[in-house]
């Protein structure tokens, strides 16, 4: 920090994002000032929540509006605020109306069918990796293809149209590698594609997301624009997150290889291990999607004024020593693990059980076939993606 800097709340983010590390400032704040002020790169000052209880209380409080946070004067990390029109930027009653529709495509029975299809893909990708011989790249083999497969199956994209769907969705989710024009073109292309899919699927309704939305369209519970925007929102929310988490989980288990070995010895530990991964991995590089107070609200004894913007560092809340014993250690024997890795309250992750299933089939596939799996180099050699939104290794070379 330089002397010329004007006084005021500290600048956010606190420093560069390194691998899966959390800046030490978060832990200090969590302990001493779980509701604090920061100055954001865009839009001025905001409140930053770092304590578990404070974050949970905030996320359960309907007086904080996600829709209001799409206003251009919202304090935030990204140049543009989140656009209105997707679930995460909606408030009641619209949010509940649309969430109720799409929730039908994520019921436990459907998730377990999707898991079977994902298992087939994992098997064939790992066959190919074994065949080609070491080193293999888990990002190319698992983290990239698996979410794509999950999404086409979830949406019910017919086999012949998958290549076209992928062409748009690839550009759309890999924001950094494409120009603004390419992204806008892909957005239009994808909207058009979904519109056509909706028209075509009318005659062969099934359990998938598009069918569920068609039924709701016909029942007047949803407009076509809403159906298309919601579809794109689910794609945005489900793709990059699961791609990054598959890579991050594989990285952590192999960087601390005794964890992988313990799982291979006792595969029963896979569920608690995944929950622990969800707790400890700070998927989002910095901050969170912002919310704004629609009236004065007291959180953790601090008054947040009407109109103020609030963000949170979920990963620090999940390392709050008031809740988690030995919070910085990865442990598969936690009796309770009420982490906030999928959020909490109204915007709790729509795809949580699908994401869990995806991580599980990936890990089960690896453990069953490659008990001797290890990083091809050192953990320090693993290259990380640049950018301020989601953390993930760029590639993850392994040998066996």
């Amino acid at each position, binding site marked *: 920090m330089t002397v010329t800097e004007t006084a005021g709340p500290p600048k956010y983010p606190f420093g560069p994002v390194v691998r899966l590390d959390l800046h030490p400032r978060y832990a200090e704040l969590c302990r001493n000032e779980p509701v604090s002020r920061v100055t954001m790169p865009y839009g001025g000052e905001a409140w930053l929540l770092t304590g578990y209880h404070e974050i949970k209380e905030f996320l359960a409080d309907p007086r904080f509006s996600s829709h209001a946070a799409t206003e251009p004067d919202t304090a935030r990390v990204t140049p543009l605020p989140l656009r209105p029109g997707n679930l995460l930027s909606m408030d009641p009653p619209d949010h509940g109306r649309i969430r*109720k529709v799409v929730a*039908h495509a994520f019921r436990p029975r459907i998730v377990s069918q999707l898991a079977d299809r994902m298992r087939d893909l994992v098997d064939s990708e790992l066959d190919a990796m074994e065949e080609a011989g070491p080193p293999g790249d888990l990002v190319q083999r698992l983290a990239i293809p698996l979410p794509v497969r999950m999404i086409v199956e979830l949406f019910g994209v017919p086999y012949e149209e998958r290549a076209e769907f992928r062409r748009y969705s690839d550009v759309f989710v890999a924001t950094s590698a494409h120009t603004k024009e390419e992204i806008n073109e892909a957005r239009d292309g994808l909207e058009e594609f979904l519109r056509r899919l909706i028209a075509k699927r009318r005659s062969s309704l099934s359990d998938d997301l598009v069918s569920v939305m068609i039924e709701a369209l016909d029942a007047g519970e949803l407009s076509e624009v809403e159906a298309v925007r919601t579809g794109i929102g689910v794609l945005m929310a489900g793709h990059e997150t699961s791609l990054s988490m598959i890579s991050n989980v594989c990285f952590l288990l192999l960087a601390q290889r005794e964890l992988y070995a313990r799982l291979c010895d006792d595969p029963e530990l896979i569920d608690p291990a995944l929950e622990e991964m969800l707790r400890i991995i700070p998927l989002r590089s910095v901050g969170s999607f912002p919310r704004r107070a629609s009236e004065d609200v007291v959180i953790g004894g601090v008054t947040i004024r009407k109109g103020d913007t609030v963000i949170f560092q979920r990963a620090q809340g999940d390392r709050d020593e008031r809740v988690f014993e030995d919070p910085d250690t990865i442990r598969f024997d936690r009796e309770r693990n009420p982490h906030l890795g999928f959020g909490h309250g*109204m915007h709790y992750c729509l795809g949580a059980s699908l994401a869990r299933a995806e991580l599980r089939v990936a890990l089960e596939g690896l453990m069953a076939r490659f008990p001797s799996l290890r990083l091809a180099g050192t953990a320090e050699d693993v290259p990380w993606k640049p950018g301020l939104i989601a953390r993930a290794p760029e590639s993850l070379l392994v040998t066996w």
Partner: protein
Amino acid sequence: MSQEQDQVQGDAGKWRIEVDRLVCAGTGLCLGTAHGRMRLDGGRARPVEDVITPDDAVTDAAETCPMEAITVRDATTGEVLAPLR
């Protein structure tokens, strides 16, 4: 409505909310959907009152619960009102 009134009027036309607390993941989703009808207790959901006058927010909560942990029944007949599919 208080427990006492419930008993005086009987359960006719009322709904019963059940939460399978072994299945509930404590997501807190239903607290928002059925505002004032559900609460978290020990990290899992519990109805504020088990027997209620009909309220669509509660069937919505049962339809959106990701774990399908909430069942809404007709309090007299036991017929399942939500989740339906």
